[in-house]
């Protein structure tokens, strides 16, 4: 677009001229050009210059027959109208020039005459401007009239400018502007009408004139800003122009076409600009399509095809630039259904990138055409030579030759041949490549930002091809590489083929044999697109240097690689420098994302998932290649992460020694040859010895081909092998890397080599459940059964069996004594002897964890120790013991340790459950006031009466499964409790110890006699000395003391004590006496009431109810005589004693009020028995 002349690119602006008074010109021009619409001013300082307004052309003889036009449009016509043909001329006179001096008046008149004659024959309007200094300077009427008459103008075309008053100046200047605007409109309208009349009357001899008139009418319309009319005539002109192609004979055919296209370009540019600036995008694009369609086939002769393509490319470029500069957007009113009947346009057509891409494509077309034309023209131009002094003619799109003869210079037309060779020589001077690259880059960037990656890639590819053509191979290679990625990803093999073909050539040119080999191999392994495999379509330009993608071409490419490897001079391309760049051995690495996976893939599967160390294991190595011809592998090296396992397989035919003699490698001579056929797995199974324990993983498989090419494939597991990127779309039999289908789907390239079996026994013994409080021992025995134990280490760990790990509650964690289960120590059998040696060996024991070292044991030896564990709470615990050892004491062996683990669950049990019970003295009921007051409260504290002998029964129950020995049961008083309360054991362990069988109880009876009042009296704690009942009796020292605190009791004095005396038995029918003794231990008079309820088993004498007063510190006795009426254990009549002062009732308990009634006198010595039983009871 920048190549177009300025006047064509911008809309035309009306032109007026001012003559005279040069000092006012700048301000007048500025005022006119700032008007809307603006006006350009042609300022002539004095009237002598007015002659340039006169028609410059030769006066045409009106009688002569009209000459046929020599061209369609004159180049400078538009420029002339924009700069030299004013629509109106204003003659400026100062007032004093016309009013005073007659000489001056005459001068003014003659100037005016001159001006009039200069514009004679044109429609140019005349304006006379009188410049006054002040508005008050009144001009006489007759001067103005005379001036008007002279100038032959209307009164309104005579304008008075007031110079020295700003307001007046602006007003008068505005008037002048309006006059000018009006006159310009009239002028351009008249001119337009004049030409239009010619068109309408068909008053012209040739088509050229018709087009020219259309152009002129349209331009005049543009001057008037009448855009629709302009558009109409431009379109008419284009229509006529298109018809002219076949009919005109004025010029030789080639030049004719060139001229027509040049004119069409101008017309088209005008139309597109008008449409786009009016916002009519859709119309503009539709128009562009039409324009392209009408000219795309008008190529002309093949020799000048390049001119067509250049022109054609420019159409796209200019339209793209127009769209870009007007920043077009897709109108909202347009149906979003692009490309259908609703909306014939497509998305890309609104994007400048689309036009740039096509412009680049066509410019490339031009480059090809020039190449063809140059080769053809070379022969002819040598004879004729390129014509000299050819220049553009005055007509658009025409060229002429200047011919000098002496002083006269004449212009001669060119013949087509001359023109062709001229155009060719001109075209050859330009390097189109860089322009094409620039266009493609513009399109690339634009498409990339639109997210159209494929379009962008196509542009990239275009750039790359141009770089290649221009000999910039490194840029080309970089671009081709970037494009190839997309094609690989989407599987467009034909496009990839073309790309790789270029890349291959680039790497030759860049002397990079490694790249050459890898690109060639990739090409050779590409799957073919079945639709494009016809051999006869070999065209280097169209499908690039790769040739057409056929199987034979692939085979050729593979052979070329082999030739290069063998340093044979290949048929084309490779030169010495390339061969020199070859290294001795070319290495190619193929990993899982490499495009060369098609060339060679290695799948490695171990037959087992785990293996013992040192035992043989089978590994399958499978290779697959998609290269078309069979590949002979010289040697195959399989590498593992443990280099001891690496092995090499040689082809049997290969009689040369191995390339590198690594002594560690196992060398295997295979009987069959190692030849890979296309798409057929080569399966090799090899037996190797597993190395050290741990992971054994196959890393890579190196295949050496033709001695100089080493392809290093990353080993892949069959289980996780991915599809081949491009071959997965092909219709072919899918084969498995191993014959064993299970292995093909689940095989792994790594194997776990296990630790060797430990040949040492670790034995944990335990004698049933552990008892809380005792030191429980667990014997551990290490017995060597084939391995010597060096630097052995025993780790002991105690873990809560119910999970949680911790053997202490978190709340108690700080307190070290609150561990529920504690590892106290480890005693070894031979501790005394080796204590000094043990001192520096590891020995750490810590609550639940312990480490001790084990002395060196030779084969067959055994060693044992005892773990001492103490339970503080009943808890189930897991004991883990692990032995780690190495087979030898050397450093290498020490690294490799063997481990034996054992575990044992041990229950912890509480051995004895202790309970106790307080009893009151028999048939004595002390009144305890606290018992009355705290009635209903939850105070469970036991109350004891002072100075009464209370009974305490302590029961120890064996909760374990083993019999226990109870050595003693005592109550240890707490602090000064001994003085306040005497505790006496009534019954106890007689002969050393008592054996308590499982779930049996042992009872001890104590009498408690408190001597002081205390609300919170601590009786002390029960101490039990117990041990496991052992038949051997050796564990005397293992007596465990178990203590339990007795609850606090309250001791109080009872104000009243009710005692009942009753014989131990009665005999049916024989009366007996009961006494109820009420002792008042207070210093107060106590009133009591008592009642006796009838009982059916007894008859009695005495009152039912009675009341009495008891003096302080005295005793009152109530006596009743009873006669039993029934035998057996009988309830005595119920006696209730009520203290009025304390309003408390005392009733003897049921057991106390029971007496056994014999039916007759029993046959035993009553006297003795009676006396003893009385003693006990009292």
């Amino acid at each position, binding site marked *: 677009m920048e190549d177009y002349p300025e006047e064509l690119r911008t809309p035309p602006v009306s032109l007026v001229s001012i003559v005279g008074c040069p000092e006012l010109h700048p301000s007048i021009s500025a005022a006119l050009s700032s008007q809307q619409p603006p006006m350009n001013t042609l300022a002539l300082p004095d009237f002598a210059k007015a002659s340039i307004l006169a028609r410059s052309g030769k006066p045409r003889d009106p009688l002569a027959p009209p000459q046929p036009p020599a061209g369609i449009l004159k180049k400078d016509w538009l420029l002339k109208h924009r700069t030299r043909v004013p629509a109106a001329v204003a003659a400026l006179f100062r007032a004093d020039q016309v009013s005073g001096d007659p000489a001056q008046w005459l001068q003014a008149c003659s100037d005016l005459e001159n001006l009039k004659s200069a514009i004679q024959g044109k429609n140019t309007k005349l304006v006379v401007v009188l410049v006054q200094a002040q508005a008050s300077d009144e001009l006489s009427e007759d001067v103005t009239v005379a001036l008007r008459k002279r100038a032959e103008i209307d009164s309104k075309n005579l304008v008075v400018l007031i110079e020295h008053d700003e307001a007046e100046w602006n007003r008068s200047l505005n008037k002048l502007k309006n006059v000018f605007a009006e006159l310009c409109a009239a002028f351009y309208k008249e001119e337009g009408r004049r030409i239009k009349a010619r068109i309408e009357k068909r008053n012209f001899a040739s088509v050229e004139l018709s087009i020219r008139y259309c152009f002129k009418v349209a331009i005049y319309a543009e001057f008037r800003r009448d855009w629709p009319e302009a558009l109409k005539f431009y379109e008419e002109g284009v229509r006529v122009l298109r018809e002219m192609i076949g009919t005109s004979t004025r010029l030789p055919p080639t030049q004719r076409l060139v001229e027509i296209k040049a004119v069409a370009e101008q017309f088209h540019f005008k139309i597109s600009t008008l449409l786009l600036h009016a916002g009519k995008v859709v119309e503009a694009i539709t128009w562009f399509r039409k324009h392209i369609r009408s000219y795309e086939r008008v190529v002309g002769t093949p020799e000048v095809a390049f001119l067509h393509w250049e022109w054609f490319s420019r159409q796209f470029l200019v339209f793209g630039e127009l769209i870009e500069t007007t920043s077009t957007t897709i109108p909202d009113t347009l149906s*979003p259904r692009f*490309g*259908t009947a609703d909306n014939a346009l497509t998305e890309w*057509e609104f994007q400048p990138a689309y036009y740039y891409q096509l412009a680049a494509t066509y410019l490339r077309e031009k480059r090809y055409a020039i190449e063809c034309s140059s080769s053809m023209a070379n022969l002819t131009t040598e004879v004729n030579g390129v014509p000299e002094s050819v220049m553009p003619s005055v007509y658009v799109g025409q060229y002429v030759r200047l011919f000098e003869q002496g002083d006269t210079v004449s212009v001669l037309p060119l013949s087509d041949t001359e023109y062709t060779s001229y155009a060719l020589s001109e075209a050859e001077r330009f390097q189109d490549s860089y322009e094409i690259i620039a266009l493609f880059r513009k399109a690339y960037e634009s498409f990339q930002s639109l997210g159209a990656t*494929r379009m962008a890639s*196509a542009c990239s590819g275009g750039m790359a091809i141009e770089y290649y053509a221009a000999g910039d191979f490194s840029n080309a290679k970089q671009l081709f590489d970037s494009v190839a990625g997309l094609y690989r990803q989407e599987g*467009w093999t034909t496009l990839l083929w*073309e790309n790789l073909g270029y890349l291959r050539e680039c790497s030759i040119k860049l002397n990079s044999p490694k790249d050459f080999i890898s690109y060639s191999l990739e090409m050779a392994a590409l799957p073919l697109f079945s639709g494009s495999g016809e051999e006869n379509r070999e065209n280097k330009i*169209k499908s*690039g240097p790769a040739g057409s993608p056929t199987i034979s071409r692939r085979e050729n490419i593979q052979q070329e690689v082999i030739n290069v490897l063998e340093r044979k001079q290949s048929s084309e391309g490779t030169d010495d420098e390339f061969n020199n760049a070859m290294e001795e051995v070319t290495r190619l690495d193929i990993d899982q994302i490499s495009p060369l996976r098609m060339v060679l893939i290695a799948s490695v599967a171990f037959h087992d998932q785990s293996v013992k160390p040192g035992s043989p294991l089978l590994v399958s190595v499978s290779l697959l290649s998609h290269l078309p011809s069979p590949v002979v592998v010289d040697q195959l090296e399989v590498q593992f992460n443990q280099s001891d396992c690496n092995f090499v397989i040689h082809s049997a035919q290969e009689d040369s020694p191995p390339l590198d003699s690594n002594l560690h490698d196992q060398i295997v001579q295979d009987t069959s040859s190692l030849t890979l056929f296309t798409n057929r797995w080569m399966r090799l199974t090899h037996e190797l010895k597993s190395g050290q324990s741990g992971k054994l993983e196959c890393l890579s498989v190196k295949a050496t081909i033709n001695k100089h090419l080493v392809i290093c494939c990353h080993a892949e597991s069959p289980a996780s092998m991915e599809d081949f990127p491009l071959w997965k779309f092909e219709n072919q039999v899918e084969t498995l890397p191993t014959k064993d289908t299970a292995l093909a789907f689940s095989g792994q390239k790594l194997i776990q080599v296990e630790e060797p079996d430990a040949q040492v026994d670790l034995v944990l013994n335990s004698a049933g459940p552990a008892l809380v409080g005792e030191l429980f021992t667990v014997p551990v025995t290490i017995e060597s059964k084939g391995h010597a134990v060096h630097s052995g280490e025993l780790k002991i760990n105690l873990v809560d069996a119910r999970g949680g790990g911790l053997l202490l509650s978190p709340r108690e964690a700080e307190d070290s004594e609150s561990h529920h289960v504690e590892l106290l120590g480890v005693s070894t059998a031979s501790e005394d002897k080796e204590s000094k040696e043990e001192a520096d060996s590891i020995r750490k024991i810590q609550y639940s964890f312990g480490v001790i070292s084990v002395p060196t044991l030779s084969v067959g030896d055994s060693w044992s120790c005892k773990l001492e564990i103490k339970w503080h709470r009943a808890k189930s615990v897991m004991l883990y013991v692990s032995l780690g050892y190495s087979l030898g004491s050397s450093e290498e062996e020490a690294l490799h340790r063997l481990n034996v683990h054992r575990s044992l669950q041990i229950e912890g049990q509480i051995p004895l459950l202790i309970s106790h019970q307080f009893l009151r003295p028999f048939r004595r009921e002390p009144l305890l006031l606290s018992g009355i007051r705290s009635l209903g409260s939850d105070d469970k504290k036991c109350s004891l009466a002072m100075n009464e002998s209370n009974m305490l029964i302590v029961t120890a129950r064996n909760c374990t499964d083993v019999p226990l020995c109870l050595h003693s049961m005592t109550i240890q008083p707490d602090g000064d409790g001994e003085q306040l309360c005497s505790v006496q054991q009534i019954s106890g362990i007689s002969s050393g110890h008592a054996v308590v069988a499982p779930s049996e109880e042992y009872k001890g009876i104590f009498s408690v006699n408190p001597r002081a009042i205390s609300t919170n009296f601590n009786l002390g704690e029960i101490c039990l000395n117990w041990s496991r009942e052992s038949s051997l009796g050796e564990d005397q020292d293992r007596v465990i003391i178990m203590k339990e605190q007795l609850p606090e009791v309250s001791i109080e004095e009872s104000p009243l004590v009710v005692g009942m005396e009753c014989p131990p038995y009665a005999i049916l029918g024989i009366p007996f006496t009961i006494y109820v003794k009420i002792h008042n231990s207070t210093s107060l008079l106590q009133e009591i009431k008592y009642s006796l309820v009838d009982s059916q088993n007894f008859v009695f004498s005495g009152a039912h109810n009675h009341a009495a007063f008891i003096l302080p510190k005295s005793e009152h006795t109530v006596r009743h005589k009873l006669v039993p009426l029934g035998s057996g254990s009988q309830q005595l009549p119920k006696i209730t004693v009520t203290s009025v002062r304390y309003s408390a009732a005392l009733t003897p308990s049921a057991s106390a009020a029971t007496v056994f009634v014999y039916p007759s006198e029993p046959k035993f010595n009553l006297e003795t028995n009676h006396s003893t039983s009385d003693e006990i009871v009292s």
Partner: protein
Amino acid sequence: MIVCVAVVGHQNNPLYLQSFTEADDALKLHHIVHCSLDVIDERVNNPKRSAPTLNETFLGLLYPTENYKVYGYLTNTKVKFIMVTTDLDVKDADARNFFRKFHAAYVDAVSNPFHVPGKKIASRSFGARVSTIVKSFGSGITS
């Protein structure tokens, strides 16, 4: 005249591509078909497209390039059909009709129990049928 038809799979990989020109522009046609996938992506993913068009399989003219016009069609299984023609005026109805027949042929070809979905279509009878459909294009013969 139809110069090229193509079937493009889910991963935008070509499943079938056949050109019908004497001239050597097979490679150019590959490029054109590949680039047209961008337009299909744009059309299918364009949120501006109103709801009634969602079920429309015929995508219309994808883009004009050089002297070709590229038409597209998207099956309900998201397989893309692309047709490249040199005709200047293609009626929508003709293009739709062509794609309808082409779709039928494609369905028959992939219904073959020996065809693995997602692989290239290598059936000869499909090729022959496509050639027939291509030859009858625009000639008004309905088969």
